[in-house]
């Protein structure tokens, strides 16, 4: 069984998406979700509605982790496999960090590249597979024919 590594931050299925909270007073969108206070300094709102964020965005920047990060990071397997990371600008005007989908690295990315949200296994623990959102490069028109 696969379970999200964190509860309520993203949906799964064919068209997974990040789940943010929209302030019911001023409509500011927050991610990660908040049950606290609105970040807009001109708003005293404390009530939020769930809202899913756009599934596609453009890369603000990217890197990778060539050394295994320290705990509480949990490696995916016994042998550490470096992974890429991307900060992605969504149409909501929010930049969201995420790992890059399995099989893709920094060579597949550039600032401004289009990426799409996918959900993949992050690690496995005693309860089974734990999943996380990831950014997957979207092949640009003509690119696949070249490959």
């Amino acid at each position, binding site marked *: 069984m696969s379970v999200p*590594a*964190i509860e309520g931050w993203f949906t799964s299925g064919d068209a997974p998406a990040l789940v943010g909270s929209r302030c019911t007073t001023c409509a*500011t*969108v*927050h*991610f*990660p979700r908040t049950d606290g206070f609105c*970040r*807009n*300094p001109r708003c005293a709102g404390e009530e939020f509605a769930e809202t899913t964020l756009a599934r596609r965005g453009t890369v*603000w*920047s*990217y*890197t*990778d*982790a*060539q*050394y295994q*990060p*320290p*705990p*509480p*990071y*949990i490696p995916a397997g016994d042998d550490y496999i470096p*992974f890429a*990371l991307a*900060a992605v600008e969504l149409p*909501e*005007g*929010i*930049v*969201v*960090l*995420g*790992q890059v989908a399995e099989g893709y690295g*920094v060579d597949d990315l*550039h*600032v*401004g590249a289009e990426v799409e949200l996918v959900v993949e296994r*992050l690690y496995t623990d005693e309860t089974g597979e734990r999943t*996380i959102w990831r950014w997957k490069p979207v092949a640009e028109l003509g690119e696949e024919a070249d490959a």
Partner: protein
Amino acid sequence: MSDVVVAGVGMHPWGKWGRNFVSYGVHAAREALADAGVNWADVDLVVGGETVRNGYAGYVAGATFAQALGWNGARVATSYAACATGAQALDTARARILAGMSELALVVGADTTPKGFLAPNAGERWDDPDWLRFRLLGMTNPAYFALYARRRMDLYGATAEDFAAVKVKNSRHGLANPNARYRKEVSPADVLGSAVVCDPLHLLDICATSDGAAAVLLCSADYARRHGLADPVRVRAVSTVTPTFPNTVIDMPLLATDAGTPGPRTFKESIGDAAYEEAGIGPDDVDVAEVYDLSTALELDWMEDLGLCGRGEAEALLRAGETTLGGRIPVNPSGGLACFGEAVPAQALAQVCELTWQLRGRAQGRQVEGARVGITANQGLFGHGSSVILSL
């Protein structure tokens, strides 16, 4: 507003010495007192930069240093703002002097730092963003620095060779600095040949962690006159502004920015702007800068954030040799964090120590000739950033 005066500065050499942070702090404090030629007994305020070491000594740093120096009845305060700690501690001391509530204030920051990646404390803390960034994404500190570095490459054509050139320059600057931990010339091949930690940053692009301490003794202009401090270095501005919503540049340890339309300037730009406004000067008046080179590429970002050049122009300045000693605007003549490493509560104060030596013309072997105005910049976590302007 009358300026506050730097009466004395001092440091403990940085490195890995294996002693308690209190001993480093006291060493730096005594150097600052000796530099000013004043007695500890005359100090009426102690502000300690807090360390994150567990136990009372770290959490009550002001009182810890006051006790170690010998109780003298001074008032006490403690400040914590991660890497901006020292500047906030300085601001507290300065404010009390400007209010006429203190005359002679000692600001001390000291720390010991563990080896390797900085990481959150143990335990399961699902509501702590610093913990979540490791658990959910494996985002280390260098990963954030690397995002900025890669963006410079894709937007402005920066190269790995440019980043290496920052390290080469800073290593040369630090050669003669008696307080620097690393005093060894580094070549571009050394940097480019070191392991990549987070693409495009190599091991030698990223600053190490150190033990270290720095202390700054501030006094009122009146005290300086009475004690014959001729042509003293003055504190012209201390900026500790927070971001303005929406904060649209991703910052450690956050997983996302605020949603919304960016304002006219970024948080880091506003830190410098506030300092310039308070000092009544502009970037063109600055002769020397000490900025936070947690990574080589970050030094280039700071040059632009402080208005020392236009956006995307830092590489051109670097390549032309304008940021090295003898250039138009030398950056990190101390050697920067590249030569010192991080000792969190001490480093913003160490920047002030360096500028003081520079403005006095006493930075032997690394002197920026004729320096009259200097600026510092650094950034802590969660909206803590600071910039200090000193001038003759």
